[in-house]
């Protein structure tokens, strides 16, 4: 094939054998290097030359990055853990059932075979599931550079659409997220044009029932802003309450005030605000029902 027939612009390729090697190569690239793991977001951008790295640093062959491990109450997900692994992992299923549910909405079978949890978080699409789940589960991102390791809280990590707090010489080696107490109820609702496509809007919420009211409420959304969102105002509204139709109506009204989604070819801002309320009501009802079952000791 001739030069002008190739889709990507030219680059060099380096298959790193260790995280330290990858960090060195990334630093040497001086801002023009890109890390590749699953490549399901990066390669499309390279193919249409939106991204033109001088060197592609492949971390797929680094041993030990492909693990999901439990450390106390937290789960660590390595940089080359594929969506398929997260979707079928027993620890995830048992300790973070909402993440197991969310995985059903991630892309398509063939993409899940290659795409990675950490890669999706680094790509930081505001309508992708894993960034929102990382935020909901109080994620802590571990970034490596030749300057050393840095830990970045999810709340600081997503700074804009497709933009993160990573410095140009840093890459993610793992992400740690909360496991949830067994009596936690959850709701995950998403609306997209086709199954597996990016969300027009999505809600993820968890809560426990203690003394008859909702506690430890977490409420996250995506597709309705420049980044995935945690909505502390909504969490406060629900905390200490029972989920009633009145409360759900209050949540719907509050969301209308809080959210400022974009209008694009897929949906108008008004439609997204409407979806937010509808999905929130469904997700909260599910979370309450599951928390009720689990509190009573049934295996929900």
């Amino acid at each position, binding site marked *: 094939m001739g030069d002008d027939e190739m889709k990507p612009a030219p680059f060099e*390729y380096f298959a790193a054998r260790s995280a330290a090697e990858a960090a060195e190569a990334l630093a040497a690239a001086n801002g023009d290097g890109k890390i590749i793991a699953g*490549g399901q977001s990066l*390669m499309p951008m390279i193919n249409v030359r939106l991204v033109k790295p*001088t060197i*592609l640093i492949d971390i797929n062959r680094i041993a030990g990055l492909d693990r999901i491990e439990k450390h106390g109450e937290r789960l660590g997900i390595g940089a080359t853990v594929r969506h398929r692994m997260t979707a079928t992992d027993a620890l995830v299923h048992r300790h973070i059932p909402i993440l197991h549910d969310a995985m059903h909405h991630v*892309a398509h079978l063939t*993409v899940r075979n290659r795409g990675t949890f950490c890669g999706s978080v680094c790509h930081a699409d505001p309508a992708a599931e894993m960034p929102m789940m990382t935020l909901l589960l109080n994620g802590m991102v571990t970034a490596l550079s030749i300057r050393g390791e840095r830990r970045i809280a999810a709340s600081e990590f997503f700074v804009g659409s497709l933009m993160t707090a990573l410095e140009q010489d840093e890459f993610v080696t793992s992400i740690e997220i909360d496991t949830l107490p067994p009596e936690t109820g959850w709701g995950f609702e998403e609306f997209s044009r086709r199954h597996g496509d990016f969300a027009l809007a999505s809600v993820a919420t968890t809560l426990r029932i203690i003394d008859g009211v909702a506690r430890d409420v977490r409420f996250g959304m995506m597709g309705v802003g420049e980044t995935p969102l945690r909505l502390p105002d909504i969490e406060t509204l629900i905390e200490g309450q029972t989920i009633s139709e009145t409360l759900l109506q209050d949540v719907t009204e509050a969301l209308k005030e809080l959210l400022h989604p974009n209008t694009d070819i897929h949906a108008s801002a008004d439609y997204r605000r409407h979806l937010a309320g509808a999905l929130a009501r469904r997700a909260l009802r599910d979370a309450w029902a599951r928390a009720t079952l689990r509190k009573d000791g049934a295996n929900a």
Partner: protein
Amino acid sequence: MPEKKITLSVSVNGVVHTATVEPRMLLSDFLRHELGLTGTHVGCEHGVCGACTVLLDGRSARSCLTLAVQADGVEIETVEGQGSIDRLGRIQEAFRQHHALQCGFCTPGFIMAITDMLRHHPLESDDQIREALSGNICRCTGYEHIVNAVRELAKERGPLT
């Protein structure tokens, strides 16, 4: 910019090939232009249509989102490994029987994705079959006959053990 070419060795449908390529060469182009295996089709070239689906170490992948150099040491399966005009593979035969193709452009991608599905996925209901097929786009059939073919293949296979 002169790129450093890289030598790789891959097994495609059991045949080992060694070649030296530019790092930016996509696996889809490598299969078609370097190895002459034009059964793998190239549609959107950015991971949306699924026409270029092949198996890498037994799992389906979009070959347009994979660099040839990343496949070094990998076992690749393409539609050429499924059968021939004279002797269709089982999935190809099911497609023929159910009229699951019209123009045929997307078919190699479907065949390879279905190979992965039949090996690894329960496919117990039409919903599961449709969800599993959702990464491949067909503009002719309306999918109905493809679902019919997969339903028959899944039934024939039986439950996953």
